[in-house]
């Protein structure tokens, strides 16, 4: 009976591992205003070889958000893309990748953030993988339409 109890304790201990945490240490470049002035700070996580995003979520601009659990199995290749959106004036066009990349004033109908927004700032990681807790430093910088930094180039092979 004592032995059985020991195994139960060990099982509980083993199960306490939990998912790893990837901490994103976000900084601003000099030409990026304080984040509080943004309409929206969006985080995208994509896993290599998957069409669906592992995470696509707006982050609280005061930094009060809890860690986000994304569909990234530890060891899988992924990238993180942070997008800073500002409020814009004038007519807006429907939300699409093209409109976003063309820096158009886009209609965001999430009911939580301003309707008219323009994609202004971005930061992204390279393709990365992690089986344990890790830290990724990223710097938010203005979007340069002529030399886009994000997302990283697609992978030809997702094998590790």
């Amino acid at each position, binding site marked *: 009976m004592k032995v059985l109890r020991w195994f139960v304790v*060990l099982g509980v201990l083993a199960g306490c591992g939990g998912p790893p945490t990837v901490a994103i240490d976000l900084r601003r470049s000099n030409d990026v205003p304080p984040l509080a002035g943004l309409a929206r700070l969006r985080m995208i996580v994509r896993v290599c070889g998957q069409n669906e995003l592992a995470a696509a979520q707006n982050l609280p601009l005061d930094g009060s958000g809890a860690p986000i659990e994304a*569909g990234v199995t530890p060891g899988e290749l992924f990238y993180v893309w942070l997008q800073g959106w500002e409020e814009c004036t004038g007519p807006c066009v429907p939300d699409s990748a093209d409109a976003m990349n063309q820096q158009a004033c886009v209609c965001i109908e999430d009911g939580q953030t301003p309707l008219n927004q323009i994609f202004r700032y971005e930061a992204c990681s390279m393709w990365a993988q992690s089986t344990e807790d890790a830290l990724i430093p990223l710097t938010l910088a203005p979007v340069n339409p002529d030399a886009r930094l994000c997302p990283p180039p697609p*992978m030809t092979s997702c094998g590790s």
Partner: protein
Amino acid sequence: MTIASAAVRAGAIAWGVLAVVLTVPAAVYGKNKPRRYAWVGLERGPLAPKAARQLETLLVDELDGYDRFRLVDASGHALDKRLLADDAALVSKLKNQGVDLFLRFKHKSALKKLDKAISIFESRLVTLEDYELLHDAMLAKAEAQYQSGEHGAAKATLKNLIALGPKLAPTSRTHPAKFVRLWDAAKRETGAVGRIEIECADPGCLIQVDGQRLGEAPLVATRILPGQHYVVATWPHGVLKTTVRVAAGRATQVRLERTGPAEEARRAMLEVVQRRRGAEAAEPFASRVASLARGWTTLVGAVKKGTDDRLWLFIARHGSGGPLKSVGRVPLDPVIDSERVARNVKRLCAGLFVDQRADIFSIDDDGAFTATPAVTEAMYASRSADAVDLDVSPPPPPPPGGSLVTGAVTEPPDDDDALIGQWWFWAIVGAAAVGGVVAGVVLLSPDPATTKFEVRLP
């Protein structure tokens, strides 16, 4: 208007007309003249070397047929038979002019033309299988030398010609008797045959001696007459030529190795493709190859395995300054000599040089054409180049050299002091058992399917 000013005006008009007459055809000719495209080679990827050579030969043969360009290798040697034909026409013209001058007793001018014809043949046309043009030019040169009184030089030229084994020899019907006697004397003075032992530093080179195809190196070319000979090594991606002097009855060793700036640039560019360092990294080498090959554009091929484990054949075209201009891909069968591979190679080349519906495209098995920017990344970039391993766990410490367990195993126990009687033995067994159970539970427990992301704002 004075007579002087009218003469000046007339002169100016005449010069203007002459300039137009001379420059317009030159400009039109220059515009219509096909450009030289330099072929860097095929990065074979997972393809076996023999299959890769087969595929590259197929590719070069296909590229040989487009009107808008002529294919050369990284050193500028013709890979395109039409370039050789152009050069052969030039040599033929020079030879005929030389003979014509010789017949008009202008021996010096004749020798200049004939020397030029021989020199062009030696620099550009030794890859031909037919050396008759060279033989004719050498014979005409010897005759011109003989007629201008340079008998020694004429005999030396005839010896060089005899060494090449020409099909036709001068006879009393075609040449003066004295010249025929000089030929006979030169032939008598030719020593016993020797041989050339040929090897290539890189595998897969086909050897040709004096226009005769001998096969793949290493090999020994036997029954070679003493004198100068032209050895050519041909790979699918390029040509290497050298002259060899064979002594009577002796063996001459030749090792053919491609070196020099063009070869270095070529290899560097292929390495960029192989290691997927990005299209930008290939640009300086593409520019260098184009410049050294006196070419306009650089072409490079690659075989890569896609995410679906299929093989794909890529061809990229870089502009003269190096920037990537277009890249296309088609599926590739591992069996290269199949009809489907030949058809897909044609489709790919047509997509790049005829249809030109998009700069970056993919063609599927059915010939469907899709413009897709990801093809560039598939050829030039990959995970190995840009992935970052974020596994931050420290490396495991090296096992201690004199650990307790090691000591217990390596040192035999005393007979009087058995292990099972020692308290520490049972401590180790217990620790190992607990450790094994923990490891088993941890290893057998399912991996977490998620990762947490925590963003720390500034």
